[in-house]
């Protein structure tokens, strides 16, 4: 068993879990934060994307023990004091989701890419957004409104 301590959505958590526990499993089953989804087993669909120490990672491809000491933000932690994050608002405004299953990962990846491009002073073009979404698969939207949502949020963030 691994003793795991981390900050999740601003709160300190501590659990003893099997060494094989994935971060996605830790969030979903141990903390019952079920907004992080698992849609594949080959690290490609991106439904499980969360932020670890400020960077988007696939929580299905990281051990909980490996995140010991880290600060983790999940989809549940994105809204602050009841106010939705601009990326969340943009997905609602632009119909960026249908079944909602890939959405948490899309939003977490969207927030990450906008933050990176802004920090590096690069322009987040449509082509860049589409390229940045390589690791997030959606089956419902045809991506049209996801790209629009991220464009919209980038202008608001």
């Amino acid at each position, binding site marked *: 068993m691994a003793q795991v301590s981390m900050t999740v959505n601003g709160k300190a958590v501590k659990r003893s879990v099997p060494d*094989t526990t994935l971060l996605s499993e830790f969030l979903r089953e141990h903390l019952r934060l079920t907004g992080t989804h698992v849609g594949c087993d080959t690290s490609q669909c991106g439904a499980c994307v969360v932020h*670890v120490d400020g960077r*988007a990672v696939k929580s*299905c*491809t990281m*051990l909980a023990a490996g995140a010991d000491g880290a600060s983790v933000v999940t989809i549940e932690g994105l809204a602050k004091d009841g106010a939705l994050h601009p990326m969340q608002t943009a997905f609602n405004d632009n119909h960026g989701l249908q079944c909602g299953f890939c959405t948490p990962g899309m939003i977490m990846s969207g927030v990450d890419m906008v933050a990176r491009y802004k920090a590096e002073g690069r322009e987040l073009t449509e082509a860049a957004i589409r390229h940045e979404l390589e690791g997030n698969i959606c089956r419902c939207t045809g991506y049209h409104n996801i790209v629009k949502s991220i464009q919209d949020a980038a202008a608001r963030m």
Partner: protein
Amino acid sequence: MYATTYHRPGSVAEAATLIGANPEAKVLAGGQTLLPTMKQHLAAPSDLVDIRRIPGMAGVSAAGGVLTIGAATAHADVARNADVLRHAPALACLAAGIGDPAVRHMGTIGGSVANNDPAADYPSAVLALNATVVTNRREIAADAYFKGMFTTALEEGEIITAIRVTPPKRAGYAKFANPASRYALVGVFVAETASGVRVAVTGAGANGVFRHKGLEAALAASFTPEAVDGVKISAEGLLSDIHAAADYRAHLIGVMARRAVAAA
């Protein structure tokens, strides 16, 4: 996944001891290949030795004009590193195209080079740039390092600590991605180095990354995209799978070589 014991050693020496003590142990660098493999029950290491946060394992130095990239440096950090961008922009470009953003935040150069996946990007750069694989025991020249698909010169208990790259005069990388996995179906890294023009091909070889002597000779004579046109690229020894037959891969090697030279 099968039961395993996770370790987070504080030093390379401690990591080496852990690896040495457990013959079925594996180094966990970024885990972006190893963990999915374990999830599918295709690997069952007794122990995982996480080297990602060992002090000094991550980061890039350009001391003496030579790039030393820590083994635990994430792809995203190589891609945006100012020294890499200055001295070997083709390497930064390659790193920026590995996997997807989330994978690039976790996956590491050392992990990729140690695994030597036949469809991975980094092996082509290491081989074409004539880079040095630095381990806890020795330094291995690229030409002596890659031994075939998923096989390297690494011995039991040997841990990559850094990749050392002497900046090339010019270099370029072009990848044709597998439409499904987005791994390299064919990736060609061309470099004009102090020891001549080197061309390494990943994704295509049935024995993993390899140098293409015909392309090297042609580009040594003229480092231009057109020079590639006269090179006959054999399909012999190339992979054939549901995504691409060997002859198509052979054709793509030529196309990617041209594009890599043009990008250099």
